[in-house]
């Protein structure tokens, strides 16, 4: 029975497959050659054929209905059983009475327990089929969710690109800062060396000047003879005398 159910679910899925993959090469899915009129697709029925009194098919009663009406098949049954029993083609021996007792008990059991067992089994079938359907639906849902998550991950990866640009800009700024810092270092170092050279040149000039001045003064002082010194002193006294009276 389970194999029929599997066949039926495959049969149900097949039209969907035909719609989705029209270029499929499976022989059975080709819709062009399939004779749908004479050999329609079979589906598993939900309810069984109708029976009366537990085992007599409804079609037998319908067969009699047009000719003999509603009571026809019952009369036929009564007549047949009467004939069989009276001619003793159906012998009512001791086994028959055993069977009759069992029949009565069986009818009572079926009438009493039948609907309860039927409902319980129907519920079991619903649970099992529901679990299959739920599994299929949940895996479809799970896959759809996985697709959504994948799309979100792709979107996030795109966001990473912007992050890369920002990081690249950051690095460029850092490089620029380092470059400028080194430029300033170079500038200061060069200035220090140049200042040093300047200072040494200044010092040298100053020392030369001082030395020259000292040397000249000393030489001049040395060249002054005592006669010249006396003459100079005399001149100075004369100038002072000349100035003094004018002021007084």
């Amino acid at each position: 029975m389970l194999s029929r159910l599997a066949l039926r679910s495959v049969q149900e899925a097949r039209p969907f497959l035909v719609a989705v993959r029209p270029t499929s090469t499976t022989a059975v899915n080709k819709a062009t050659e399939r004779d749908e009129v004479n050999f329609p697709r079979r589906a598993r029925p939900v309810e069984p054929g109708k029976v009366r009194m537990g085992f007599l098919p409804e079609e037998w009663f319908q067969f009699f209905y047009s000719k003999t009406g509603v009571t026809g098949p019952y009369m036929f049954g009564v007549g047949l059983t009467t004939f069989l029993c009276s001619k003793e083609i159906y012998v009512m021996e001791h086994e028959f009475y055993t069977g009759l007792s069992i029949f009565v008990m069986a009818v009572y059991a079926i009438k009493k327990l039948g609907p309860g067992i039927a409902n319980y089994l129907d519920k079991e079938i619903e649970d099992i089929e529901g679990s299959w359907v739920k599994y299929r639906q949940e895996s479809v849902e799970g896959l759809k969710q996985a697709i959504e998550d994948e799309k979100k991950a792709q979107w996030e990866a795109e966001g990473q690109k912007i992050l890369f640009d920002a990081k690249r800009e950051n690095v460029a700024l850092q490089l620029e800062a380092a470059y400028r810092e080194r430029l300033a270092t170079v500038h200061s170092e060069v200035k220090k060396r140049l200042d040093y050279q300047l200072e040494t040149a200044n010092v040298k000039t100053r020392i030369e000047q001082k030395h020259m001045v000292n040397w000249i003064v000393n030489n001049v002082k040395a060249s002054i003879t005592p006669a010249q010194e006396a003459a100079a002193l005399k001149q100075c006294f004369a100038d002072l005398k000349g100035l003094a009276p004018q002021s007084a």
Partner: protein
Amino acid sequence: MALGEYPAEYNPKVHGPYDPARFYGKPDTPFGQVKLGELGSWLGRRSVGGIPSAISRAWWRWQHKYVQPKKTGIAPFLQLMVGSMAFFYMLNYGKMVHHRNYKHH
């Protein structure tokens, strides 16, 4: 036709998945619509070797109708019981005759 093989006329491209309850040969008038005069020719068209497959198809048709539906009841079980009771009664009829209660009917 060998045992366990598909019928020769079955073509999956045309007929779809194999259904054991269907007859895949050339369609003929159903037995209920055969006129009395054509009965002889109708029987001539049938072959003896097709009897097992006819029984198999009838069995599968009964199964599709009463056993395979999702919500079957006690009907197929009772039908099998009554059928086997009748069949075995017929087989044992020779013995049953001796258990008659009356001599003249």
